[in-house]
């Protein structure tokens, strides 16, 4: 997602922000995970923007996607080259208005951006976990976030907002802690991964595990499986775009040459783009975290988790007011998947709005500047806030 991070066009920003750490589940009060194992202590990296109001009713939790982090908005210093990943949406007067709301974003459990993950130190061995890290689920990530929200003294979240794997967490929050959520905005997401999505994730994982440097996840003292992780990222990027966006962005244009090289260099712009994205990604992301997070997303299935008979029954637990948004060219989490959850919400008499935004940019559309998306989120949140304040 980092390729889209950009400065606000009008120079508006929440300003200098700081990453904080919250550690909990210290032994012997370890966190029990869905797979039955225990984990502790657990640290979550998080950031907050704006002020919590006196009755603590204006908190908005942002949930990030696969490769995101707690740094949703603002800058770490005055000479910071890039702002947070959702700078275009989060800030004063923006879609998620930090003048009105207290915004929280935490790095997910299993990631490598400050929260406990497979690259963290295993207290039992004094070495990085590697594959000794338990296979966590989206539910475990949400349970950890709930500990943070408790720690911040927030009884009810005004809204939980997130796209893609962040959207999975939004849905999980709504079913796991229904009485803690006033409203929810799942963007470009799904109640369960399709075979297509699992297939792409599996190929990406295989790319990592086939890299000799991966060494069964034990690589933290030597060379990292950069080639495998880069290929995994390249596969991801293909699924985030669309036929149309790739045609517009690259077509069959050649990269820095006027004719074919007749070797296996990156002739086409699209090849060059993917190689560049892959090589950039390995600088900032841990291959094992990629394995763990994609696996968690593949396991995610609201029906299986909450009522094996139907998605409608699973949503009978939910109480939030929903705004569901999908994008026309998103083939990773296509509109029909959003519509399936909207249908389940309707059948439960839940208050739900749904909009399918026309966009050529595939799954990535939710991260790109989009006036419609900004206006939808802004309008929805304002009315939810006004109604709760009344």
């Amino acid at each position: 997602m980092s390729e889209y991070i950009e400065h606000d066009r009008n120079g508006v920003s929440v300003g200098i922000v700081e990453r904080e750490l919250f550690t909990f589940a210290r032994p012997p009060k370890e966190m029990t995970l869905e797979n039955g194992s225990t984990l502790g202590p657990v640290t979550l990296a998080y950031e907050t923007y704006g002020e919590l109001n006196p009755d603590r009713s204006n908190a908005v939790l942002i949930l990030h996607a696969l490769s995101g982090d707690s740094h949703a908005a603002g800058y770490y210093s005055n000479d910071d080259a890039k702002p947070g990943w959702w700078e275009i949406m989060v800030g004063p007067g923006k879609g998620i208005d930090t003048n009105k709301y207290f915004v929280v974003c935490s790095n997910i459990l299993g990631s490598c951006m400050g929260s406990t993950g497979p690259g963290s130190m295993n207290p039992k061995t004094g070495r990085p976990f590697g594959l000794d890290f338990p296979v966590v689920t989206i539910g475990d990530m949400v349970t950890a976030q709930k500990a943070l929200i408790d720690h911040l003294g927030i009884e009810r979240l005004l809204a939980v907002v997130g796209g893609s794997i962040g959207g999975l967490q939004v849905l999980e929050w709504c079913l796991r802690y229904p009485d803690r959520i006033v409203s929810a905005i799942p963007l470009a997401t799904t109640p369960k991964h399709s075979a297509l999505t699992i297939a792409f994730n599996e190929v990406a994982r295989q790319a990592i595990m086939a890299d000799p440097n991966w060494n069964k996840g034990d690589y933290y003292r030597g060379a990292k499986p950069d080639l495998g992780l880069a290929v995994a990222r390249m596969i991801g990027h293909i699924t985030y775009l669309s036929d149309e966006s790739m045609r517009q962005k690259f077509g069959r244009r050649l990269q820095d040459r006027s004719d074919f090289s007749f070797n296996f260099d990156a002739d086409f712009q699209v090849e060059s783009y993917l190689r560049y994205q892959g090589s950039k990604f390995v600088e900032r992301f841990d291959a094992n975290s990629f394995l763990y997070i994609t696996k968690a997303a593949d396991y995610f299935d609201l029906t299986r988790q909450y009522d094996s008979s139907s998605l409608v029954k699973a949503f009978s637990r939910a109480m939030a007011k929903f705004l569901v948004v999908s994008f026309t060219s998103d083939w990773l989490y296509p509109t029909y998947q959003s519509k399936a959850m909207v249908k389940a919400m309707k059948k439960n008499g839940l208050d739900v709005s749904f909009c399918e935004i026309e966009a050529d940019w595939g799954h990535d559309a939710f991260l790109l500047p989009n006036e419609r998306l900004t206006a939808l989120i802004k309008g929805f949140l304002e009315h939810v806030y006004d109604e709760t304040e009344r």
Partner: protein
Amino acid sequence: MSTMKPRDSEIRFDLQIIASWIEPGSKVLGLGCGEGELLHFLKKNKRVSCTGIELNEAKVAKCIEKGLSVLQGDINEEILDYPDDSFDYVILSQTLQQIYEPGELIRSMLRIGKRGVVSFPNFSHWSVRLQLLTTGHAPITKELPYDWHNTPNIRVIALKDFRRFSRETGFSILQEVAINTDHHEKSGNIIKFFANLRATYGVFLIGKRKQ
């Protein structure tokens, strides 16, 4: 003819008639709700809990920005998801003439709602009749402003036809108001006599027929 003063000039005259029928605090579903003019009015003035269904993305977005709960989709499909008696009123305003299966849709409306509201332009208005008679062309009016080749309106309905349709389809007309108004005007007249000839729109409150 009795001239009605606009009770609230915020909304169109035909919508004012519909709004006057809606009990405060009730649950309403608006089919083809456009930019949510009526639903917003009902929510604000009658504390009505509103849901809308609208196909057009830009209109859906406008509604959501106003704080309405609206789903983007085809009304004929979306209506099927709701459990029986989910709403007090289901409103189909100025859309019946575009519906492929009107009987099916009205049955669904009365399945999920206790009452239905249906309004449509009256095709047997004298100006329509006169145009066809004198010019020999398919009529174009303020209420039905399209050519035959670009109209979204696939059906032409007279007030009389709708009454007959209610008997054949098996629903009751609980209230009926025929009005004469420019589509965009905030005021209008209620037509009491020779409505089928003189009214530009019909607005009907319908219910399940008592067995």
